[in-house]
């Protein structure tokens, strides 16, 4: 689904070019849940922008769905640390925003509005937000806003979901709750996910594969398969094997931070 071959990216900084990524290679299979972890400032977010075609690599190739990426990929859903909901739209209208932009929904938006609305409602239900559709974002708590943001990134049934530390601003309990929400949605719809995170437990619990990035300039220095059986319950986080994996990842990152 996603293939990065020896991709480097430099951008113009104030004191000359800054190398954000240097010779990064990564591949994510269709339907795979991939997590990218690494020290802060290692270019994880740059990786997201490369994959979605928002920035062009300085060298190397990016392929999505077997085709080289030349511009915005038009099929990705994205969610970030901030929910970024539009305060002048109700929750439902926020969810429907991608449908107003992406084809084929865009051209049939007016005629099929009721159908899309029903779809948005049912998506809200799956994340536990039923009945909140007519509220405005500011009437929701941070966790609820993040759920809505997740729904917005999924409403057009994207083949690819890009998540940039989506749960970083939440408290521990809400975060674990949303892990399970994401796990369930992913298992039901089976899209490809790239999750960028600082949280090693999050990566280990959710992902099939965890990629560890080095400090800037970033490159993938280790890829680990996570083979806890699915469906995973949150209890898996308290098993020794899980702790071992998290510890190993942690040591790896500590190592690259030293370097």
């Amino acid at each position, binding site marked *: 689904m996603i293939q990065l071959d020896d991709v480097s990216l430099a951008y113009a900084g104030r004191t000359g070019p800054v190398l954000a990524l240097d010779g990064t290679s990564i591949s994510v299979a269709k339907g795979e849940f991939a997590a990218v972890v690494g020290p802060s400032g290692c270019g994880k977010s740059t990786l997201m*922008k490369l994959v*979605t*075609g*928002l920035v062009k690599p300085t060298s190397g190739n990016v392929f999505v769905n077997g085709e080289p990426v030349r511009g*915005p*990929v*038009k099929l*990705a*859903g*994205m*969610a*970030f640390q*901030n929910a*970024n909901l*539009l*305060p*002048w739209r109700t929750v439902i209208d926020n969810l429907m*925003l*991608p449908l*107003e*932009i*992406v*084809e084929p929904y865009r051209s049939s938006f007016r005629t099929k509005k009721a159908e899309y609305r029903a779809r948005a409602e049912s998506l809200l239900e799956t994340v536990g937000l039923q009945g909140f559709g007519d509220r*405005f*974002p*500011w*009437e929701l*708590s*941070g966790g609820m806003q993040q759920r809505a943001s997740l729904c*917005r*990134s999924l409403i*057009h049934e994207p083949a690819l979901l*890009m998540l*940039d530390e989506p749960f970083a601003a939440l408290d521990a309990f809400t975060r674990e709750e949303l892990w399970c929400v994401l796990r369930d949605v992913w298992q039901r719809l089976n899209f490809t996910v790239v999750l960028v995170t600082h949280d090693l437990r999050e990566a280990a619990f959710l992902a099939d594969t965890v990629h560890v990035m080095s400090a800037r300039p970033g490159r993938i220095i280790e890829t680990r398969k996570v083979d806890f059986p699915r469906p995973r319950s949150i209890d898996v986080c308290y098993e020794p094997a899980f702790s071992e994996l998290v510890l190993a990842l942690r040591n790896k990152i500590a190592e690259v931070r030293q370097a």
Partner: protein
Amino acid sequence: MNKPIETLAPWLFTIGLFVVWELACRLFNVSSIILPAPSEIFAAMGRYASPLLKNSFVTLWTTMAGFLMAVAFGLLLGLFVGWSRTIYRGLYPVMIGFNSIPKVAVVPILVMWFGIGEVPAILTAFLISFFPIVVNVATGLATIEPELEDVLRALGASKLDVMRKVGIPRAMPYFFGSLKVAITLAFVGAVVSETIAANAGLGHLMTQAGSNFQMPLVFAGLLALAVEGIGMYAVTAWLEGRMTGWAFRSQQSAGG
């Protein structure tokens, strides 16, 4: 707490101001050529009600005409300037330069071009008031959260889509907020122009009355200006609250 007092407070202060003014004038025996007492001013307002109303109306419509031009032009230019960073960078210094010219200095030029009358007043009102609208609209557009733009662009949204769905709605509180400033400025512009060169309007009336030493009438003109100014400000403030209430409510968003 003390809700009725709070609603009454503006009125009480206004009446109090006039009472103190009246008392001071009587107590210190101030000549009405220097500072007429409110009673004299109100008497003058009654006596000259018809010319005051007529000239107030002229000032009102020139202000509104200039203001509406400023709204249309400011909105368009703001959208244009906010569209891209390059345009923003390129046009900003020019606009700053234009805005720092005192508009009083432009009135004689306008008079040369269009003659004495209402046109210079309208144009002065327009010239002085479009700037805050441009800056506010452009700022609203230029400060779209980059992440939100990424979300839309990753969906394949064009620049126009981003502007329509996010930029323009987002700029609206800035726009309506700037109207309050713009209407006040337009009013200033119209009156300044009328004072310098016009044959109607409150500014003209006051200059005439001043040269005839009719100080109560001058002050009656001032009061009329104040009332008009408050009225126009109130209308734009109401409009702002009505059109973009979400911007105020979302600021006090509760967490939990």
